[in-house]
């Protein structure tokens, strides 16, 4: 009986997408992001740069979900202020993203549900301001039915009120903020650094880590211990992670 229930639960989960960053995969239930579930992302604050960091984080995940050739991710949004060359530099080239522009959040969520159930997309990303618990439940159901991952990027509605405070049935909920990056030896801007905070996940603890921003393939990385030295190969799994929230 219990085995059957476990098997049923396992069958509803899709293939797991690991981050390739030791501590993150270690702390995530299942060792990565569920390929048939709803994941929420929000900026750590309403500021524009946190907003951009969270967008890039979502784009990085989407580009790794859409890594196979000839598959596309759907990016649904109501107000178009994305800059597509920037998305390409997070791994989501123009042949890999299909944009859908809805008039309202409600219409957008309906579009996403249709797209998820269809199952022909590698990933669905939606930028919304308002999504209540019912909406997230519907998205989660559609994602597990269509075996398509859903990333819900929640934008700030009011200054200072985190959108992740609303109840939701997402598998994981991430909050991304920018941090000051390490200084290079020469003048110039290096790779960005983020505070990646997993606010809530099903079947696992929340945590918070300082990570390097995603590269042109959408991969995150652990920051090197010092500015000049790379992480020693054996240390990736034992590196101390930040405070658990």
């Amino acid at each position, binding site marked *: 009986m219990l085995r059957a229930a476990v098997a049923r639960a396992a069958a509803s989960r899709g293939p797991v997408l690991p981050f390739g960053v030791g501590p993150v995969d270690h702390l995530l239930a299942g060792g990565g992001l569920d390929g048939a579930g709803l994941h929420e992302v929000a900026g750590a604050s309403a500021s*524009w740069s946190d907003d951009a960091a969270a967008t890039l984080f979502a784009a990085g995940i989407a580009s790794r979900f859409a890594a196979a050739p000839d598959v596309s991710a759907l990016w649904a949004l109501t107000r178009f202020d994305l800059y*597509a060359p920037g998305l390409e530099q997070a791994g989501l080239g123009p042949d890999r993203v299909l944009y859908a522009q809805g008039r309202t959040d409600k219409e957008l969520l309906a579009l996403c549900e249709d797209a998820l159930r269809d199952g022909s997309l590698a990933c669905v990303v939606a930028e919304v301001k308002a999504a209540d618990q019912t909406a997230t439940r519907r998205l989660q159901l559609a994602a597990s039915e269509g075996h398509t991952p859903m990333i819900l990027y929640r934008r700030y509605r009011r200054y200072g009120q985190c959108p992740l405070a609303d109840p939701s049935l997402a598998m994981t909920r991430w909050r991304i903020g920018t941090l000051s990056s390490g200084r290079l030896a020469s003048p110039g801007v290096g790779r960005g650094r983020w505070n990646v905070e997993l606010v809530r996940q099903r079947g696992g603890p929340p945590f918070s880590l300082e990570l390097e921003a995603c590269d042109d393939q959408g991969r995150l990385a652990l920051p090197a211990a010092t500015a000049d030295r790379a992480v020693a190969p054996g240390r990736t799994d034992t590196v101390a992670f930040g405070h658990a929230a």
Partner: protein
Amino acid sequence: MRELGRRSEAAAPVFRALRSDDGTSGGIAAPLPPLWGLRPTIVVARTGQRDLVTAACPAALDLGLVPGMAAAHARALVSDLDLLDAAPDADRAWLDRLAFHAARCWTPTAAVSGTDGLWLDLSGTTHLFGGEERFAARLLGFLRRLGFTARVAIAGTPGAAHALARYGGAGVRILPEGGESEALAPLPLAALRLAPEALAAAARFGIERIADLYPMPRGPLARRLGRSAVERLDQARGFVPEPIVPVVPFDMPEARRSLLEPIGTAEAIEQVIADLLGDLVLALRERSLGVRSLVLRCDRLDMGAQFVTVGTARATRDAKHLMRLFRLRIDRIEPGLGIETMVLAAPQVEALAPEAIAAVLDTARQAPDLAPLVDALAGRAGDAALFRLSAIESDVPERAIARAGPLAKPAGWPVWPRPIRMLARPEALSGVVALLPDHPPRRFAWRGRSYAVVAGDGPERIHGEWWRRPGEMWAVRDYFRVEATSGERFWLFRRGDAITDKTGDLSWYMHGVFG
């Protein structure tokens, strides 16, 4: 118009109007505006190095200007002359349309003949229009209303009809059975559709009229003018048959159901649509076509009609998929008192060959097909809501992006660092402290907050595109990527290169943000 609850359909007026275009319904072609006024007018086309006259209006013909003479010669003869450029493609399009109209309305066998004529095979069809004379008169009237002048010749062979229509002189020439040889005799040789070399050879031998050929022995004639000349002659006189390759008019695939009882419920409408789709898909499969758009017309009892249109991103004849598209729109049909006829037509079709079955079996390597999803989403949000972005070759960031179709495979951009989000309109910075000419700012204020910059990259110099606006002739933007103290990364630019004044006023702007 109504009797016993049934719509009666009048016969289409075949001499009254020309359909606007083949393959689409409705619409009547407007008559051509007159090409010439009182002044003599000629049409000129460039052939090789010379401008030749290809057509002349009656006034110009009276002045001695004939098709085939050099345009310069014509202008020398008549100084007060209007010249028009020849449009052979448009002429050909008109001829094709007339041929299609003829094939649809007058005779099953119609073809375009040369660059200036039509062949209609009238065998067994003229009695429908009141005899040959009456048909020819109505045909001339129809063409006159469209703005054409025409000559009609009805003969027993296509060759004779061709020759008499062009060289016979009269507006309508109807040849009695078997009179071809006699009627052709006084005509010039050019009427026989001979090759130019054959005509030149005949001119050398002094043969001018077709009658000159009749007494000649066939062997030497074939040697001197070529076998095809003899064949043309025989075809014109009716000794050798000459088939006409007819144009095949395109009929819009259509399915129609007249209902015994008017319907008004969504379930019934859905059922009828499913039946119509079944009929239509069968017809499409027979003709190897796929639809790009479908129009459903619902005729109501109160004579109102409801139209529902669906479009597809790629040609398809999948009834299940098309049904799903219609199901999204059934609620937009207002049945009123009831719907008594439903017609499903495919105004936009494309060739769709059967797919090899191997591609279907090999599911592991096959990329998922997005077209059904795109149609479904477009049905919900509108066609314009789904798009991809493709690159335009422009260095100005806001111009580098264009929308493309949802199934396009666009190319990417160069790999210069670009922000993830960009302001629609750059916003001015205030309180900027920066070393000129090529250092990023040390501090700046934007939207009421001041930022201290800890690192910066740049400048990336982007020049204005003078070919778009004269104001951009000297304009320069120097872009910098800067990081502020708490990790914010912005994309700023300064107008002007700080060396030459006319490149810009050195004001600073915020344009985008990196994560």
